[in-house]
């Protein structure tokens, strides 16, 4: 599903270059649920931006669902984001001016679907997250967990092949977080590939595989316990605690 080889991403300002990703390689198979972990500044978010075609990279190759997406125009990237990828953000990123129904509608609109098709998809996905009765509510009228469920409904309505989740439970209390993780589990069980960036070990263990990122690279943690004890793993260790 997702194949990244030797990806390099450098942020440049006038005075400094920051190597956000350096020789970053990762393969995620179809139907996998992968958790990406790492301390702040390790390059997780950059990885997510690149994986989600939110940002370009400087060198390396990236194949998404078998298709090379390394050098695409902005509108081609928009199209893939819209059809193949679904995003779940830490801060939900619902559009505050739109009600729940219209929020779920946003990506479908950009896809140019017909009215009845959209309505059907929206209602089905809201039903799946259990928020059918809240369709007319504004985001500000919902709890954090509910908002995140709306964001997930927004993903589901689009039927993506790949879901990228960025700390989906970061702004939620543990009860709500569990609910969201259950939801993601169910979605994954239905066949959708999920790549989730997270700090939280409880969340990470729900995934089938954990990837660790450090200094812009995937670090091989075949023997995680050793790594935890080593000074290099101190950052991760502290995160885990």
């Amino acid at each position, binding site marked *: 599903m997702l194949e990244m080889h030797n990806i390099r991403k450098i942020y440049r300002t006038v005075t400094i270059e920051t190597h956000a990703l350096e020789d970053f390689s990762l393969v995620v198979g179809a139907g996998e649920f992968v958790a990406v972990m790492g301390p702040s500044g390790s390059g997780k*978010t950059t990885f*997510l*931006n690149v994986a*989600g*075609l*939110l*940002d370009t990279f400087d060198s390396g190759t990236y194949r998404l669902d078998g298709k090379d997406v390394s050098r695409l125009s*902005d*509108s081609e990237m*928009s*199209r*893939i*984001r*819209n*059809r193949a990828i679904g*995003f779940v*953000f*830490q*801060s939900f*990123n*619902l*559009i*505050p*001016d*739109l*009600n729940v129904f*219209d929020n779920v*509608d*946003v*990506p479908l*609109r*950009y*896809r140019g679907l017909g009215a009845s098709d959209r309505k059907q998809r929206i209602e089905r996905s809201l039903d799946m997250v259990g928020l059918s009765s809240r369709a007319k509510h504004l985001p500000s009228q919902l709890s954090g967990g509910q908002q995140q469920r709306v964001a997930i409904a*927004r993903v589901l309505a*689009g039927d993506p092949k790949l879901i990228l989740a*960025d*700390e989906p439970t*970061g*702004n939620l209390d543990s009860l709500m977080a569990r609910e969201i993780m259950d939801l993601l589990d169910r979605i994954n069980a239905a066949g959708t590939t999920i790549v989730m960036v997270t700090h939280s070990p409880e969340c990470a263990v729900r995934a089938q595989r954990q990837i660790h990122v450090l200094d812009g690279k995937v670090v091989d943690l075949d023997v995680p316990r050793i790594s935890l004890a080593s000074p290099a793993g101190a950052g991760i260790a502290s995160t885990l605690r």
Partner: protein
Amino acid sequence: MPIGPILRAMKHNRTRFALIILEIAITLAIVTNCVNMILAERVKMQQKSGFDDENLLFVIATPFAPEFEEQTYVEKVVHADLRALQAIPGVKAAAATQMLPWQGGGSSGTWKTEGYPEKFQAQIYGTTRGLFDVLGTPVTQGRAFTEHDTPTDPDTSTTVTIISRALAKKVFGDANPIGRVITNGEGDTPRTVIGVIDQFYNPYAWNIGEYVLFTPGRSFGSRGSSYLVRVEPGAMKSVVSQLEPRLVAVNGGRIFRTLTVAEVKDGFFAGGKLVIRAMTAVIVVLVFVTALGILGITSLAVSERTRQIGTRRALGATKGDILRHFLAENWIVTTIGLVLGVIATYGLNYALVANLTDQKMPWYLVAIGMLLLWLNGLVATVPPALRAARVAPAIATRSV
């Protein structure tokens, strides 16, 4: 572009859009009404006198010497003056008359004629024979004045008149005006129409600018005489410099005042020109201010919604989608503003017409104004909308 969600989203930014709507509405009302006033002034200014305005000058001779009490002496001086004026190189023709084109008035009276039911008003000027050569409006029907038309006794009133085509049309319709008789309001001093000139316009208070009677001779007396002079194109300067010495040579017991008709016309239109300038300035500044306002308010909206735009981009919106979103928003707001503006336009026009003597608002002005403001809104929205389109989708993942 889907209008429904845009409209629903706009409800949450009511104030901002209400401001733009009001601004556009008032701007439309002001712009169209100002243009209307400008057009009204321009119509007045474009009125042609029918004369060779650029090459005409007017000399007023006011005597203080006692010999001018004697009418026969005055007459002698007038004839000597006319000869002296015509002798100046560059002078085409000269006549003694009190008609000064474009002074915004003159002399007029109330008249009657058989066959026209009401009394009517028209300007009246006495003149020596050369006037129609001076004005450049030949007598096209009937005949010009001859020396026999001037009564020998200065106290007798004249018996013939030459009138303008517009007056002939007004009181005689299509019938032949030659030989018809015009009297004063009480039916006295009958004058027979002997000729018609085609072109005449001299602005006057009661809308009688095109109506005139000319009578032969004697528009002068002890209070002075005045002359209308036509010069060759380009000769104005040299003629003006020679006027006074030549007239002083005839009789120095007078003071002279020389005006070119071009100056008089300028003075007559000075107020109108000022109005046009002021209105134009107001329109330009206002349209600019409104554009800046839309630009400013939309820019703020864009920076406030940066994250939202990033999210939309992350969800698959192309740059074009974002651009279209803001343009559609602007289109809706501008359209509402313009519809309200039409109401405001007619309201303001009504207020101005009720108070003042302005003209009604023609519909096409409103249409043009709407188009202009619509484009103005578009132009003002494009820069911030482009900035919005450039928002990176990665903004969406930036942690709080």
